[in-house]
């Protein structure tokens, strides 16, 4: 009984896909490119796809990418989405460092904790974006960040699902 439970179910030819270690980072790069969708919106309520994918990976696993990879990934995001250069570099790296430090104190991690952490990080990121916009001459009232944060919070499970499927695919699990 024990022996059969421990036996690997993997068949010959199955296993991690090529460059499986780079799939998480590549998915973040791709999510940044989604900013090129031809959506002309009157408000900026869409979730920040790349940031949700980034923290989704990091919340699912502790080792999708080293924390410092957030800096080049964030630079790419700044370049293609038009946020002030340096914004995503700072916020993304800070988010990953904060999660690394937080992992030392966390005793357990279930899905609700992940969701709460994701909402907290998105709220911080949106607030930082509002603050930077205020410094650049576009001061908006605080409540304007509520709709995008709520939409991001509601869509995080979808992103987490996509990431979980990607993770299964890249590691060759069934």
């Amino acid at each position, binding site marked *: 009984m024990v022996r059969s439970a421990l036996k690997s179910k993997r068949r010959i030819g199955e296993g991690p896909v090529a460059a499986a270690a780079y799939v998480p980072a590549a998915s973040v790069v791709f999510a940044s*490119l989604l*900013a*090129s*969708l*031809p*959506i*002309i*919106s*009157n*408000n*900026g*309520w*869409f*979730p*920040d*796809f790349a940031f949700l994918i980034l923290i989704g990976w990091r919340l699912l696993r502790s080792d999708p990418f*080293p*924390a*410092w990879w*957030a*800096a*080049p990934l*964030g630079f790419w995001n*700044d*370049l*293609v*989405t*038009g*946020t*002030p*250069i*340096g*914004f*995503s*570099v*700072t*916020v993304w*790296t*800070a988010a*990953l*460092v904060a999660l*690394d*430090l937080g*992992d*030392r104190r966390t005793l357990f991690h279930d899905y609700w904790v992940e969701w709460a952490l994701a909402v907290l990080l998105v709220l911080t990121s*949106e607030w930082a*974006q*509002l603050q*930077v*916009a205020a*410094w*650049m*001459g*576009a*001061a*908006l009232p605080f409540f*304007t*960040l509520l709709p*995008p944060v709520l939409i991001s919070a509601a869509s995080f499970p979808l992103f987490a699902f996509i990431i979980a499927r990607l993770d299964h695919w890249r590691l060759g699990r069934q």
Partner: protein
Amino acid sequence: MLAPPRPGWSRRAQYGVFFSFIAALVGLAIGLVMLALSIAAPHAFRNVRGVGIDLMAPISGGLSQIAATVSGLVGGAGNYWDSANQNGALKRQRDAMARQLMLARTIQLENRELKAALQLRERTGDAIATGRLVSSSFQSPRRFAVLSVGRSDGVAVGMPVRSAEGLIGRVLDSGSQASRVLLVSDRANIVPARLLRTGQAVISQGRGDGSVDLKPLEVGRNPFRRGDIVVTSGTGGLYPPLVPLARVIRLADDGAVAVPVADPGSTSFALVQPAYEPQASAAAPAAQAAP
């Protein structure tokens, strides 16, 4: 306290985690420096941002063509529905417009004669380039759009952008093939304007949600009424005068809330015009920094 947990007794793994942590802190510091530079000196990354726009605009352009085709097929099919009634309504509308056009022609003639009498010279802003709005900042509290023409078409930072309906905004960054437009509804976009009905000077400032705040320049009674049209005044020299700007939808206690006449979402073509007074485009970044 601050260092990450040790991954075990392997010296190599310990160093790996430690250096990764140091690298993250270095990345954070570099990010902060770049962000400070972006805020304090928006010119600093102008070329880098231009490259970013050039990277993205072709993708957006292709995707927006596909989206336009699909929505055109759906909309085209919808137009056949109830076409007899539509035809009648359009004919009535056309007759009404023809009468108004006649009136407008006589006013135009009168206007031309009056201007000739006053020796006024018109600085007509011929369009420098015509492009399509292919994308927008749908993830950000700022309101930007990506326009499919850039430096190689003669577009420069600070030039006003309009459509046939009205003012859209001004060029903020330009790549060689595409540029980013600061929309009228962005909080940092302040447009000097006039109330078309009375000619009173007002100021328009975006609200970040597709509408604008209107404030009269002179303190006093609220001059706005629902449905009022506001046009640019040309003050400041950045935007040409008499371009339709916004329509009042709601009165506020010291002004009004209005929606831009030109909706970027339904604009097919946008014209880039030269700055109304050329020296104004040099002063544009300063106006942007003002709250």
